[in-house]
């Protein structure tokens, strides 16, 4: 090294060209660093807009669902009508007719169930849908209009559809079923939904597409998970936890009346008559479910175990599968 320095000092050749090239190199490096830093700063703003769009898509949807679903009562009325037609023979014994044992005219009482779905609020406004004695299936029923909140209330009261897609809503069991009867250990009823927009401006509807899942638990807790469906791998999700307020009232109305009297053996030694009485018992059970949003959280922080999360996405902040807590 010392030898080389000495050689250089001894050299009679100039180094201006070398020095100029060195200055050029230094200037190029500094320039590239400055330009790269400036471009990166501008690029970050562009990336920020993409991230914010994901947030706004999901947050707007969460706000919309909260506004539309929270605090809206859904009333489901179940009516059980039992008709008993009873025949009683009165036979002449001495100078008085004695009452005999009553018997059912058809051998048994007839029972009819009716389920009325209603969302009438306290002011008596809103729709009312009479399902009738023929129950319907989910989701292919044609008799009911498609309302998300009403469907959830029906599923909460009558349970999820069976393997044939049918809900047992016109049986004695369904009539007796209160919220507590579902049992706390019952598996959550799950499904998926998406929100789409009709806005026509280029690209906006695509940006705002949202996918969601619902998870309805046996205690009535409803978990809605929302995430962006804009085709991007980066997922932002929000979880809405909704708690139900559940009220059930029951009223019974009994009407009884004589339908007719028929005489037998009137001109013979043993005359008797038959009285036919009809008793109609109408039991009405009204269940009102009002879900209220009690928490909105990012990722699966507030979701209970089993809540659906986007397929293949990692929503937990620390990584790993989204299992809930």
């Amino acid at each position: 090294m010392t030898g080389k320095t000495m050689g250089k000092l001894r050299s009679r050749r100039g180094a201006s060209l070398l020095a100029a090239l060195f200055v050029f190199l230094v200037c190029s490096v500094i320039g590239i660093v400055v330009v790269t830093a400036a471009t990166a700063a501008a690029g970050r703003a562009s990336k920020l807009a993409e991230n914010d769009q994901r947030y706004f898509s999901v947050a707007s949807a969460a706000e919309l669902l909260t506004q539309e679903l929270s605090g809206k009562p859904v009333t489901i009325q179940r009516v059980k009508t039992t008709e008993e037609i009873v025949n009683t023979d009165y036979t002449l014994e001495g100078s008085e007719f004695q009452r005999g044992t009553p018997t059912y005219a058809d051998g048994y009482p007839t029972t009819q169930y009716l389920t009325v779905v209603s969302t009438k609020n306290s002011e008596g406004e809103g729709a009312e849908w009479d399902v009738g004695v023929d129950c319907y299936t989910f989701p292919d029923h044609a008799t009911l209009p498609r309302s998300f909140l009403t469907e959830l209330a029906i599923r909460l009261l009558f349970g999820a559809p069976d393997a044939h897609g049918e809900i047992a809503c016109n049986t004695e069991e369904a009539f007796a079923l209160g919220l507590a009867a579902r049992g706390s250990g019952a598996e959550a009823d799950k499904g998926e939904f998406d929100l789409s927009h009709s806005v026509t401006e280029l690209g906006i509807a695509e940006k705002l597409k949202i996918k969601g899942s619902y998870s309805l638990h046996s205690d009535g807790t409803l978990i809605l998970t929302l995430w962006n469906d804009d085709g991007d791998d980066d997922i932002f999700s929000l979880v809405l936890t909704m708690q139900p307020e559940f009220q059930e009232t029951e009223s019974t109305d009994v009407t009884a009346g004589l339908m007719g009297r028929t005489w037998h053996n009137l001109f013979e030694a043993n005359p008797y008559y038959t009285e036919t009485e009809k008793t109609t018992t109408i039991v009405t059970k009204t269940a009102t479910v009002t879900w209220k949003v009690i928490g909105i959280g990012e990722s699966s922080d507030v979701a209970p175990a089993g809540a659906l999360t986007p397929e293949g996405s990692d929503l937990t902040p620390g990584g790993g599968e989204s299992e809930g807590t």
Partner: protein
Amino acid sequence: MEHKALKKLESQGGETIAELLVALLIAALALTMLASMISSSSKVILRSMDSMEKYVAAENQISAHEKKSGDDNVRELEGDFTVTLHVNGNGDAWALTDDRLEEPLKVTYYVADAIKGKPVVSYAVK
């Protein structure tokens, strides 16, 4: 060592004029290039700062679902735009509640155009 350095300084040996001129040209070119790079970078940063300021102002408006009058960075899209719900992959549109069966869910969109080519949109029920 010191003696030799002193000698070198006193030396009359040098370079040709051509060599010197080329070296000066290269150095001038390098300095000009650096100056223009710094200048254009500062322009990019200033423009970026300006658009960020506009963006943050616009973002505040769209997160509050409002458009300040006279602010061109936020547009309000109002029309018969509706939001529809589809459940379990079924193609049919569902209402959120029975109240919305006859009155579809209409929304207003708030579009922030502060960052070119990347409009940010939020929406709220009308």
